């Protein structure tokens, strides 16, 4: 059964594995651990938003930017301790998520995708427009050091990996609780049929806005972590490519599934690095070598979607049932990824009910 102690146990075991890996592996691998942890935090929020509440967002990179800049400004000007800046970033992005969520509650499918995409494009341009506060294209430097009790020789990247992993795990445990609570059930109800949910007394608008707030907070935490891990916040780190990568990771991993968020994040962090390593070790010229990872990454996205329509987690699930036989129906129904992101009637005129809309 999915219970709080069980989730806590999984989190503790994961923390132990990460601790072991971070001590054994190189500095670069530590950096990658931190990268995956950051990615997971943001992707988990998005997979909840899109998979459970049925709202697409192509602009969650904007919330990461808000979290990152909040942390950088607080560390830079007020010398706040990181943990306080992290909490403050969560609060600020919650407010931002609420505002966007209210605007988004009326929009469906591709219209929501278009609005959030434009948000992701437009927000980082504020940094260039207000250079005095946000440091323009160069961005702001973030100073983050290891605490004194670890000793002077403790590698900074390992500490960054630990902090990122801790934040990611706490976020995941809390999200898991939320998803299987009344709130999560309301999200699924609204996603599957708004009218039926409203008839059952669910406040549809508030439920949808809350999903945006939750996903914005996750993205804000991720942005805050990104600031301390890369020691820099700059508009170049929060491009639309980032927002699209987040959605990609969520869908590739298995939409609406928290373990899926981990698989998707691992894939989008590791595949490009791995292919670059292979390309350079074969001595390819730089213009070819630097573009092969991009092309390979695109090909992997297409292949995974064609081979595992339900994402990696869905594929694993199917493999598992081959060995153990089907699980009880109720459990499958609850865990199955969303058949539609939005009910088809939302986007098609009445004559086209048999078609499904997708953003």
């Amino acid at each position: 059964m999915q219970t709080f102690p069980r989730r806590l146990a999984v989190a503790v075991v994961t923390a132990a594995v990460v601790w072991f890996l971070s001590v054994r592996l190189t500095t670069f691998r530590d950096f990658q651990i931190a990268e995956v942890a950051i990615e997971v935090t943001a992707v988990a929020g998005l997979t909840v938003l899109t998979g459970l509440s049925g709202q697409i967002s192509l602009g969650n990179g904007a919330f990461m930017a808000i979290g990152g800049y909040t942390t950088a400004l607080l560390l830079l000007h007020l010398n706040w301790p990181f943990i306080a800046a992290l909490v403050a970033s969560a609060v600020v992005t919650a407010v931002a998520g609420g505002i966007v969520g209210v605007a988004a509650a009326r929009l469906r499918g591709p219209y929501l995708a278009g609005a959030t995409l434009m948000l992701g494009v437009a927000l980082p341009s504020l940094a260039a427009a207000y250079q005095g506060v946000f440091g323009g294209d160069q961005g702001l430097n973030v100073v983050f050091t290891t605490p004194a009790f670890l000793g002077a020789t403790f590698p900074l990247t390992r500490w960054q990996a630990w902090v990122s992993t801790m934040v990611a795990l706490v976020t995941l445990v809390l999200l898991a609780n939320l998803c299987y609570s009344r709130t999560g059930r309301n999200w699924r109800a609204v996603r599957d049929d708004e009218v039926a949910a409203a008839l059952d007394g669910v406040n549809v608008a508030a439920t949808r806005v809350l999903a945006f707030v939750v996903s914005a907070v996750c993205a804000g935490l991720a942005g805050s972590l990104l600031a301390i891990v890369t020691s820099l916040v700059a508009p170049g780190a929060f491009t639309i490519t980032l927002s699209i990568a987040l959605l990609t990771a969520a869908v590739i991993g298995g939409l609406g599934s928290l373990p899926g968020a981990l698989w998707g994040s691992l894939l989008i962090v590791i595949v490009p690095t791995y292919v670059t390593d292979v390309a350079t070790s074969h001595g390819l010229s730089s213009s070819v070598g630097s573009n092969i990872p991009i092309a390979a990454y695109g090909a992997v996205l297409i292949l995974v979607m064609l081979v595992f329509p339900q994402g990696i987690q869905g594929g694993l699930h199917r493999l598992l049932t081959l060995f153990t036989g089907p699980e009880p129906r109720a459990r499958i129904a609850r865990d199955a990824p969303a058949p539609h992101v939005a009910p088809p009637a939302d986007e098609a005129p009445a004559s086209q009910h048999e078609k499904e809309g997708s953003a």
Partner: protein
Amino acid sequence: MVEFLQFTLSGVVFGMIYAAVALSLVLIWRGTRLLNYAQGAMAMFTTFVAIEVIYRTGSYWAGFVVALAAGVVLGAVCQLTVIRPTMNKPPLNAVIVTIGLLTLLEGLAGIFFGGQYRSFPAAFSVTGLKVGGTALGVSRFDVFVVAAVLVTTLALGAAFKYTSAGLRMRAAAFNATIARLSGIRVARVLTVGWALAGLLGALAGVLVSPSTFLYPSSMDAIFVYGFTAAVIGGLDSAVGALAGGLLLGLALSYAGGYLHSGASLVPLVALVILVVVLMVRPDGLFSATQVRRV
């Protein structure tokens, strides 16, 4: 006053390019209920093909025609190979496949054509036209841009309206099941839709590249504004795509010209316009009458 005229004219020119991208998105959306995020990358790729042809043959028009033909082929090939298998899967899968296609094409362009910025020739002179000594801020080539998009759009519109192939396409977009029952090969019609969208995208790529340079991600921003224009106009409406493109082109041109810190605020202006339009009409300006959601 002269300034205003210049901003207006250059807004119209860019608006027509956004409109061409928006129209290609609308074509695919009406047929397959899918937004093609690879549209910009496909246009970038065909424009690279055009530049190679122009270098080899020395003829702009050879490159122009080859680019449009490459757009048709690329659109059809993409639809047949990777899009068609996703049509019976969850809708977001097709979206991710188009994003994968976008990434794949940008990577392949970098491998085959190199990542550096390349300038793209214009068909006509790019020096500004003058009327009685007043500079208009547009060139002969800009006039060609507007004319090319308008002619292509009108030709497509006429084809949809007056040919039997156009009737089949409209029928398939209106109701796939009934169209299939009437003997229309809907799958083939969808491929044709992608091919035509590829043609429009290729046109936009060739027309915009003289003013933006050409590199693997050069069409990303054009795609984003084209997408925004399509959303503003309403994804089901070709007229909406044209109107949305023009509206966005004009607004961004005025913003870039008149605002204090102009260029850097242009994306924010686009966001504000988009949000205002969607708050008033959540399905775009020219969407069909809203069906009550049940």
